[in-house]
């Protein structure tokens, strides 16, 4: 797949330009491997049900976008994949989620190992209050992936390069990561996540706290990362979903309304609700 979604500046996009944007994304080939399968997933927060019986297959080496109005459960569903919902008091997950055919909710699975395989980037850039170097080196260090100083430096440089941040920070690796700009911080968080060598990267509205230019940089990065990783992206911006994703899932009130190739969802939505949301009638 040599095709690249050209991440244009988001401020230039509007619904009328959607076709234009989509014309650059083609549906992924049918023989793509399925990485994550979810079957009949229900999530409860105490007595309230946040996710209602969702089943979904997420392909490898592609970006899958979750869209939907606020409170529709897209972030909750995303957090099922690395069991971050476990950390929330009173949260309960039912159903079956498999990654590469392996059930991640079996009692004998170690969450720590799972999270080493599945990186996560959060809505607000959250670098550790440590140096840039230590931020990236932390994951490999705790998982014992690096043994020597030289190896650590190599991993840090490679990760920062992949995240497109190396040139900007190579001379100040030992300054605090919190001193970077918002967009740089988010790329640092992405570098930190890929330093562990995950198979899947979950991104929970990674650009919502960033300005359009920083957003464009991150979107381009997401598109590059797609060649090696399975990426699941929660976004509020339909333009972003259209620009960077190959598959799009539309959530509403805890239900999966529609799931398909991004081009199809945006141009020929099968469901009335999807169309209403995309055209701005609900949301």
């Amino acid at each position: 797949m040599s095709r690249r979604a050209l991440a244009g500046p988001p401020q230039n996009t509007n619904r009328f330009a959607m076709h234009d944007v989509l014309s650059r994304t083609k549906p992924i080939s049918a023989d793509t491997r399925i990485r994550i399968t979810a079957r009949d997933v229900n999530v409860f927060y105490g007595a309230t049900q946040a996710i209602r019986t969702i089943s979904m297959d997420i392909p490898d080496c592609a970006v899958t976008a979750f869209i939907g109005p606020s409170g529709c459960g897209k972030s909750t569903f995303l957090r099922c994949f690395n069991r971050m919902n476990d950390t929330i008091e009173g949260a309960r997950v039912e159903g079956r989620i498999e990654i590469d055919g392996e059930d991640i909710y079996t009692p004998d699975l170690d969450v720590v190992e799972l999270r080493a395989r599945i990186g996560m980037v959060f809505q607000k850039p959250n670098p550790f209050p440590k140096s840039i170097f230590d931020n990236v080196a932390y994951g490999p260090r705790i998982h014992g992936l690096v043994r020597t100083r030289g190896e650590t430096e190599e991993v840090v440089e490679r990760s920062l390069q992949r995240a497109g941040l190396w040139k900007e920070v190579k001379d100040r690796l030992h300054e605090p990561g919190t001193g970077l700009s918002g967009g740089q911080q988010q790329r640092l968080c992405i570098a930190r996540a890929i330093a562990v060598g995950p198979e899947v990267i979950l991104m929970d509205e990674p650009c919502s706290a960033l300005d359009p230019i920083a957003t464009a940089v991150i979107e381009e990065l997401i598109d590059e990362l797609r060649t090696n990783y399975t990426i699941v992206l929660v976004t509020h911006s339909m333009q972003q979903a259209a620009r960077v994703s190959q598959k799009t899932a539309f959530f509403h009130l805890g239900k999966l309304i529609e799931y398909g190739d991004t081009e199809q969802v945006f141009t020929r939505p099968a469901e009335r609700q999807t169309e209403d949301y995309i055209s701005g009638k609900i949301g």
Partner: protein
Amino acid sequence: MAEIDKSGQSAMIDQADERRHIIRQGLGRRRRNEAIFRSLGLAAALSAFGFVVVLFGNIVASGLPAFWQVNIETEVTFDPEVVNIEERPVLQPGQSVAEYRREDLAWQRRVSLANWNALIEAAIRQHAPDSDVDTRSILSIVDPNARFVLRDMVIENPGIVGETVPIRLLGSANADNWIKGTIDRSLPDHRQQLSPEARALADALHEEGVMRMRFASHLFTNVDSRVAPASAGLAGAFMGSLYMMLIVIVLAVPIGVASAIYLEEFAPQNRLTDLIEVNINNLAAVPSIVFGLLGAAVFINVFGLPLSAPLAGGLVLTLMTLPTIIIATRSSLRAVPPSLRQAALGLGASHTQMVFHHVLPVTYPGILTASILGVAQALGETAPLLLIGMNAFVANIPTSPLDQSTALPVQIFLWQGNENRNFFEPRTFATIIVLLGLMLSLNALAIYLRSRFEKRK
């Protein structure tokens, strides 16, 4: 149509004007309320500041004079007639060390029996204008401890006998009162502490410059004394407080911080932990004297720890400090943003790694503040110490936490009840100054450490 439009427009303009008018009226009221509230706040802050200034000013003004005390600078002749002692025994060949020690002690005892007061009397009499002042009056202006000062000089250096050496002796507490004017000079004779002759002598010596104010360094090196109040010092109480502080730091800080971390980060939410939580919160509200009673009942009666010892006191204060440290540490742990926890967990850090690598480092300043608050509170506590016997009169500097001792706040309590009020009131304030100084330096240390931790972040 156009007509209606126009009238509609002017009506809208009228409405807008009216709205602006209402807002402007309301604005005046809001601004007034704001000004009233701000001036009230300012007044509150100023009055609080004023109280602090008055309090500290009073303490410092009352306490500072006690740091200077009347001294008598004269020359003492170690008259061989009076100090009639033989050579100090030396270790003979063939003599056992124990035997030698026994002989040496016997010699020291004989030295003590010499009439040292006669030397002091002679030394002062040479400055006395009228020579028929009685011995009692002369000795009443000198600290009773002076004779031991002379004795120790001879024991230290027996060769001094027969020589005349310059010496500085402490004036007695009553002489100090008289010279400083802390006793009313117009009081009739029967209400004065010194005889008329002694008062006249003190005035004369003061005029001559023999009696003068000197910095009372013995306040920091001597222990409490009943017979010689002028030479009483704080060293015992200071060491007692220091030992207790060490015990509190060594026990309460690690236990408190560890239990706060456990309760906040690891403990499951169930009946038992709820019960523990409620109890810890309640412990913080228990009056300190109850802890003293508990200490007496448990540490002294059950565990048989020595009475009046800093060890027992330190344990009681540890119990008392624990809830403070636990509560404050927990609240600083709770203030760590969830995003930081998520970042660590999302990377695959285990719960323990998250706590120790990321949460704790950002809470160091808070934990430090909590610990200092707790320790400072313990340092100033008096009531529980009274119940475990730390208000006993102890005339030794404790050399270990198992020795009997008192503490600074207890020393304040003891001195403020002393019958020689004129002399001990300023000293009480002086002790308060020392205690406050200790606390302030503790706080300064905390602030210094805190800023270092924050810089590292």
